[in-house]
């Protein structure tokens, strides 16, 4: 064990963890002997998959924010709200805490997720000298906070089911809801499929310990 320094990776000493159950196996094994899952040293194709999902999500971010996400009929008058105008409306009616929660969950988090993942993938693909530790911390935050974007969709579903009094008062979802749901799904998948070990392999050669 003496040749373990603080940079030795599993790949150099011939070990790999099972992607499903985490049990360590030697490279020559094809399947994990505990759960039977196929072992992969490094999933190089995950980089392409992650890029594809991320780019699709980034494109869908536009309709998700530009089209209305809710429609409200109030005494015969129809009002369409995008994510942003909905939040502005909340601020105008003095509901600041709710406005802040929804702004974070619906605008800030999706945007940070896409920017953060782009930085991560660029660092792998083009070997950019961005601090690996910062990227990884950012990645953990993205993984943890990303699901909170679902908040807006839950609120829309509750509101749509409760507020349905015909011409008098009626709340309905609008086209951006589907686009927004897909943005969440695709960004979560982009983070999930990525083999994060690729970052640490590639930059190791550039001799930056961070």
């Amino acid at each position, binding site marked *: 064990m003496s040749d373990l320094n*603080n*940079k*030795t990776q599993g790949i150099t000493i011939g*070990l790999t963890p099972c992607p499903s159950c985490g049990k360590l196996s030697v490279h020559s094994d094809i399947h994990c002997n505990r759960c039977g899952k196929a072992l992969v040293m490094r999933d190089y194709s995950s980089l392409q998959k992650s890029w594809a999902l991320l780019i699709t999500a980034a494109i869908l971010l536009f309709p998700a924010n530009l089209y209305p996400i809710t429609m409200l009929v109030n005494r015969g008058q129809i009002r369409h709200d995008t994510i942003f105008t909905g939040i502005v409306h909340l601020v105008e009616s003095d*509901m600041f805490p709710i406005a802040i929660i929804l702004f974070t969950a619906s605008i800030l988090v999706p945007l940070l997720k896409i920017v953060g993942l782009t930085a991560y993938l660029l660092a792998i693909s083009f070997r950019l000298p961005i601090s690996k530790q910062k990227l990884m911390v950012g990645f*953990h935050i993205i993984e943890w906070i990303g699901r909170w974007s679902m908040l807006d969709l839950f609120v829309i579903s509750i509101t749509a089911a409760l507020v349905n009094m015909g011409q008098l008062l009626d709340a309905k979802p609008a086209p951006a809801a*589907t686009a927004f749901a897909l943005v969440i799904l695709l960004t979560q998948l982009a983070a999930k499929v990525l083999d994060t070990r690729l970052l640490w392999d590639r930059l190791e050669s550039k001799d930056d310990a961070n």
Partner: protein
Amino acid sequence: MEQECADNSVVLCRSCDLVISKRALPSGVRALCPRCHTTLYDTPYCSINGMLALCLTALLFLLPANVLPVLELHFLGSVRTTTIIEGAMAVSNQGYWIVGIAVLVSAVIAPALLILSVLFQILIIKYRLNSPFFRDILKRLLSYQGLLAQLSMLEIFMISILVSVFQLSDFADIFLGMGTFCFAMLFLVTLFLQREYNLEHMWGVLDE
């Protein structure tokens, strides 16, 4: 070297593949990867009986939380109620079935499957059902555990209920009922269950 390391003396960080020699931890402490701060392992802390009690409590609240209305709205003399499933149906009926499915999966199906899955795992371990049939079931349940935990979003739905209450109370009277209470309990009990649960430890049972 390979033989030496394939035992339990080292762990590999699943985020960056760093080799770290394993050390004993005081209870309640997590070991983090020194290089990328990913959680490596924590002390096995799950008591089977405690989890069984939490599972059964969660099951108790599961049905009323999904069948009873989570919110009730009074507006100009008319009353509207909704369950989580009706909310999902309401958006689906408008043509937004992707949103409907997302709501249904993350607030109803995944949490229910998660609780049932943990219950079966615990029963298999508690009653030492060692036949290949049960071991195979345990393996399958464990390999879907991570996915179910990610899909289950009770905590987010809980906050959504509160956000809706504040938003709607602007122009209507909102009432919280038995369903809201059951959902809140389901959320709390599942939260404690997931804290107690340790996937790595459960996989370890298969090695014994």
